[in-house]
């Protein structure tokens, strides 16, 4: 445990010095502030920001994460020649990256809200949901990045896979779901639809945000399953749990590969 903390400490100083993370935080800061300046009001800012969060955070987390782990090869090899457990190292590496990425997002997106405030109490809930979703997406896509970097020895191929994976989750998946819905329009699709959403972390985070932005519309569902799902804490609970699994599963798989990996 102590060793993990040390690994995290050194990785943090390394990540922060690379300045990428500062740019990342600045990006969110500038965008969020701009949304306040031009969009008018916290409601609009939250909405635009959530669209951005669902696209940008997975992209940056998976790309930055993959690249970082490839570039940290020397650091990893150096530490592996030291009395350091691989498990500790892997945990430390992951935390050392997911932590600053999350913090960068929280600081960048959060500061303008702290400064301008939110217009209504319900917006505060939305903001919290947004920040939580952002952090979870960061954790998920950093974990996926680690899985990729551990699986593929070749950096270019790894980055390619990372981009494809992002493209799949962020764009293609929803297209496929839509095709599927049309193909099976004659069948009751409420439950399969919820399952399909649980299978994609970006969709899951999006649904979590919908529950705060678009309850009015979601409550218009005729399906009893949806009413149950959206009308209660079950929806929020299940979405959050699914996101948790999405963090744990790739991380665990990545760790299993890392344990056996040759350096």
């Amino acid at each position, binding site marked *: 445990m102590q060793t993990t903390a040390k690994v995290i400490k050194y990785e943090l100083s390394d990540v922060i010095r690379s300045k990428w993370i500062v740019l990342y935080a600045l990006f969110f800061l500038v965008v969020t502030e701009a949304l306040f300046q031009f969009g008018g009001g916290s409601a609009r800012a939250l909405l635009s920001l959530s669209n951005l969060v669902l696209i940008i955070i997975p992209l940056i987390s998976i790309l930055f994460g993959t690249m970082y782990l490839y570039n940290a090869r020397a650091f990893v090899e150096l530490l592996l020649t030291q009395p350091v457990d691989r498990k500790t190292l892997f945990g430390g590496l992951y935390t050392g990256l997911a932590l600053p990425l999350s913090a960068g997002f929280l600081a960048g997106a959060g500061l303008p809200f702290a400064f301008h405030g939110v217009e209504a109490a319900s917006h505060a809930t939305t903001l919290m949901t947004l920040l939580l979703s952002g952090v979870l997406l960061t954790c998920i896509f950093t974990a996926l990045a680690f899985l990729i970097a551990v699986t593929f020895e070749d950096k270019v191929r790894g980055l390619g896979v990372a981009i494809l994976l992002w493209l799949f989750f962020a764009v293609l998946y929803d297209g496929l779901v839509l095709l599927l819905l049309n193909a099976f329009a004659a069948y009751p699709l409420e439950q399969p639809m919820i399952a399909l959403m649980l299978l994609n972390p970006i969709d899951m985070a999006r649904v979590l945000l919908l529950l705060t932005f678009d309850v*009015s519309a979601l409550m218009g569902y005729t399906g009893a399953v949806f009413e149950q799902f959206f009308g209660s804490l079950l929806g929020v609970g299940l979405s959050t749990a699914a996101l948790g699994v999405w963090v744990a599963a790739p991380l665990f798989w990545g760790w299993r590969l890392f344990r056996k990996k040759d350096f």
Partner: protein
Amino acid sequence: MTRFAPISCFLVALLVLGRPALAQDVVVSPEGPVKSLSAAIEQAPPGGRIVVREGVYREPTVVVDKPVTITGEGQAVLDGQGERQIMTVTADSVTVRGLIFRNVGVSFVEDRAGLKVDDARQCVIEDNRFEDTFFGIYLAKTAHCRVAGNVLQGTGATETQSGNGIHLWYSKDIEVENNTIRGHRDGIYFEFVEDSRIAGNLSEVNLRYGLHFMFSDRCQYRDNVFRNNDAGVAVMYTKHVEMSGNRFEHNWGSAAFGLLLKDITDSRVEDNLFVKNTIGVYAEAANRIRFERNHFQENGWAVKIMANSLDNVFTRNNFIANTFDVATNSSRKHRSRFEQNYWDNYEGYDLDRDGYGDVPFRPVRLFSIIVEKNEPSLLLLRSFFIDVLDAAERVVPSITPETLADEKPVMKRIL
């Protein structure tokens, strides 16, 4: 004799109306000589005053068959003991004020009420409380009545086990003002009511509609609040309705509407607030309605307009933070117009700086049509893929109705 007729009429009128009141008052109290309201009505002369002192009165249904004024003092409770209608007014010019009507009891056979006015005129029902009365105030075949400042609290658990709060049937020239209605089946229910005015009422958490009327022409609805009713507000088969300054809030559900307009024609809906409803306004076979200066915010669908609605005009309304601004069931030509509204989803520009966007706004999203056809796809809302589809459709409209467009969207919100 004929030349004295006007004078004698005046004298009679003086006798009836201008008589010193206090001397004629009949006082009902648990301890006094008159212990029941029915007895007091029997004793009171036409046009007399009855004062009901604090206490709980249990007696068979009180029938008010002469023009009297009944006033409650303190907690004057008429208890129906869960088995009967409490008061029936059959005479003209009856005033009931300051009483508490309690516990009528559910009936599946008759429309029992706390207070029923049957075939009477000039009634005044003011500042009473109705607690757990099946129907609250029931006016049948009445005219020139005033129902104001009453508080009605129903406790029915299901639609069938509860009656309406203020129920009007075959009535005209009625004023319904500043009442509060909660927990009834329909808060306010009108059928065949004409030329009436409904203002300043609060109707909330009712089991079905906050306001429900049909065949009720030429009525005005002003400054009422309809909030959190199970199915919102539904009005049907009526002409010349004027609705202004009302708030339609927080009506959620698969069949819940801020305002459902079915077969409503030649009417005006102005300066209303529609906030957080599943559907703000639902218009079906609604014709020649002018929607002006309404504020639609955070609704699932701000406006759902069916293609069988003709020649409606939406102008100078605000559309802010709605999931869908406008949806419709058909892509064929629509004969309703949207002009000079403010749309927060408008992404156009105003190069000539005249306050209007230079390109039209199409409020019907492709996605809303997809959802209309395939409901579960609603879960794809705000996904990147859907946004791209919508953007493409906006550039080259092919499925969305081309005629549903605001040619002159306003750049800044109205009000």
